[in-house]
């Protein structure tokens, strides 16, 4: 089981790829932990996160098998 990660919009440009996949390390409990694990840096300001296609927070728990998405503030409509 892995966690699949997606990046959208400006964030995808900045990260340089559309997604990642990782087995959940024991040190990763939340979406924020996951970001720090993948990028060796704190989550950028105004970062938004969705877990399994629902809005979540950086302190929301993540589990193996989850679909996690990181993106900047939305600008539809």
């Amino acid at each position, binding site marked *: 089981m892995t966690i699949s990660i997606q990046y959208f919009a*400006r964030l995808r440009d900045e990260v340089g790829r559309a997604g990642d996949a990782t087995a959940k390390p024991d040190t990763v409990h939340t979406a924020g932990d996951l970001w720090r694990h993948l990028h060796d840096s704190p989550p950028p300001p105004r970062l938004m996160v969705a877990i399994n*296609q629902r809005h979540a927070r950086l302190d929301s728990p993540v589990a193996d098998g989850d679909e996690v*998405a990181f*993106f900047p503030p*939305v*600008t*539809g*409509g």
Partner: protein
Amino acid sequence: MAVRLFSEPFDPWALVRERERELPLEKLGATSVFVGRMRDFNDDRTVQGLFLEHYPGMTERELERIVLEAEARWPVDACEVAHRVGAVNPSETLVLVAVWSAHRIAARDACAEILERVKHEAPFWKRERLVDGSERWVETNTPGS
């Protein structure tokens, strides 16, 4: 409830009229509609085109959730939300919100609320193409209330 994404131009008034064919209009005294279109300017810059990125799957879920919550909060009988994705040219429709109710206040308030939540919660991102060929991500929506 109907939520639709269009990757090609669509006619918002045709959509509204089509939906009304299946509605009991003699019960629905009030219809409130908002149509948002692509302007050829933004922040004093001339914009040539727009790309609307979205999160397939989550987008539809979010739009449906927004409409269901409006239907729970106001006495509205029908809602229609349509949103464009992909490459868009100036004057083309980006978003349609239509609400039918027996009462005008419910129709008006639910329509406004759905629009604001679509703008602030549904996972869409606009990238503008300026006249000099450069592109920029739109950083934020203008506040709505």
